[in-house]
């Protein structure tokens, strides 16, 4: 496993790409899911 890891690291000399926009985008998706769910849950509780 460790040798494999090393090999993989060697084979990807580029540095990590900048994925800030991705982080924010997936977070927004996550928050949207939570808001939807809790919205319907409140409706469920109120009935």
């Amino acid at each position, binding site marked *: 496993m460790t040798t*494999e890891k090393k090999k993989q690291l060697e*084979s990807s000399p580029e540095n990590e790409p900048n994925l800030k926009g991705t982080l*924010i985008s*997936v977070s927004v998706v996550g928050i*949207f899911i939570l808001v939807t*769910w809790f919205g319907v849950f409140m*409706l469920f509780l109120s009935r």
Partner: protein
Amino acid sequence: METATAPAKITNVFTNRGTKELSLPKNERRLVMSYMYVAFISLFIGGLMGLLQVLVRSGSFELPWGINYYTILTVHGVILGLVLTSFFIIGFQNALMGKTVGYSKKQLNWAWIGFAVMTIGMISAAITVLLGKANVLYTFYAPLQAHPVFYIGITLVVVGSWINAFVNFRQFYVWKKNHPDEKSPLLAFMVVINMLMWCIATIGVASAMLAQFIPWSLGYKNTINVLLSRTLFWYFGHPLVYFWLLPAYMAWYAIIPKIIGGKIFSDTLARFSFILFLFFSIPVGLHHQLTEPGLDSTWKFIQVILTFMVVIPSLMTAFSLFATFEITGRKKGYGGLFGWLKHLPWKDVRFLAPFIGMLAFIPGGAGGIVNASYQINTLVHNTIWVTGHFHLTAATTVILTFFGIAYWLIPHLTGRKLTKSVNRLGIIQTILWTVGMLIMSTSMHIQGLIGGPRRSDYSDYGGTAQAAEWGAYQMAQAVGGTILFIAIILMVYIFIKMVFFSPKGEEEFPIAQEEDHAEFTPKWTENWKLWISITIVLILFAYTVPVMDVIQNAPPGSAPFDWPIGNS
């Protein structure tokens, strides 16, 4: 396109990257096109039924000639939910297999046999539905009983799809044998996963048909175990929706990056998410039966938990897509937090249609999580909310992605070009679909939350106050549905144009490649024995006890109901 392979050394990674592309010979193109014809004819017929449904439900239109609302609803559900989807998918997947691993002559002959069996089955079932002899809706819930030919036809469709699946497995196996140290082409790997899932799932319908529905409808058996038949249906019914979705994911992971001028984000991530979909698509069908009496709530709960596992590969997919867009944009020099959005080819319908499909999956997926949440399900169960939900997931996410595929696949197959004017029509089509669906689906969601039922002819329910609240939403659905129908006409026009009239030429079959320095894909991704074993173990775990229970403590069997709807 293949990168040179490193000298043979025993490692636990595949050292080749990328996919070598084959070209599709004439006969393979013809096979795929045959599937496409069925798919687009289905789109037209099913869309027409959809239009009639929304008009009837608005209360201002009555079906002529005594046609039963549930006949057209059955046509709509069967022809769009079962026929259009499975024919488009198997056709598309056959194109992917031809392009990545190829067909032998014998394999291609068998693929044609599969197509013939599917088509014969489909036409027989369709005739019974159109004659009103099978008004049982696409879920064919017992004790509603259809004409035996309906059940036999559906069984043949399944058998035909199995023949096709085994051809795909064989193609894959032969390729692997000829390329022992290479990783399989990503798209072929994905097709095999989807067909494996399909084969395991359709055992449910096939056994319900052979052991229950066919003998019962032929009169050899007087009664049917309703609960067992529904459980077997949903054992198939949930993986069915993933059978629709995974081909869309194939395009998102491995085709869209090429269209936007980028690379595959991570080959390993894509494969692993497909493996997780295989695991968690089948042992979860009870989440459609949460209000079904006679099933132990413990097992419903366990399957709800398993259902939520599918959130993992879904969010992996979302992450991977955003990352593809962002990395590609940044490479092209677009900076800032969201500057990379600007590079996306918004004017290319091959991108725009699937992209809107992706967006629709955000509310679609969120709604699905609501549906599957055991207690909250009681709020939406059997309401038109559910219909709103799957018109987002199936009829937008999946269908718009399929349209996005059709814009290049059909011209590629017919040796024509995707012209600028067709591209423009396609963009109009996509916008119409988006607007129509936004109106129809949103009003369905709201009407469902205030109690409006699905699968319901127009009724004022004896003038109750609650039903009066639904009227405006049903009107809105008629408006949205009409826009959608116009979009369907436009799509059929585009299809005809791409098949017969566009100028001759070569249209690209876009298959994305990996980055030159992408990490190597580990060999464990192709440990098929392990993946199949885990899938089977999960199914046995989730289903053995409830199914034994349904058989041993069977409810009294039901005689057939063929009235008011059914076979009458």
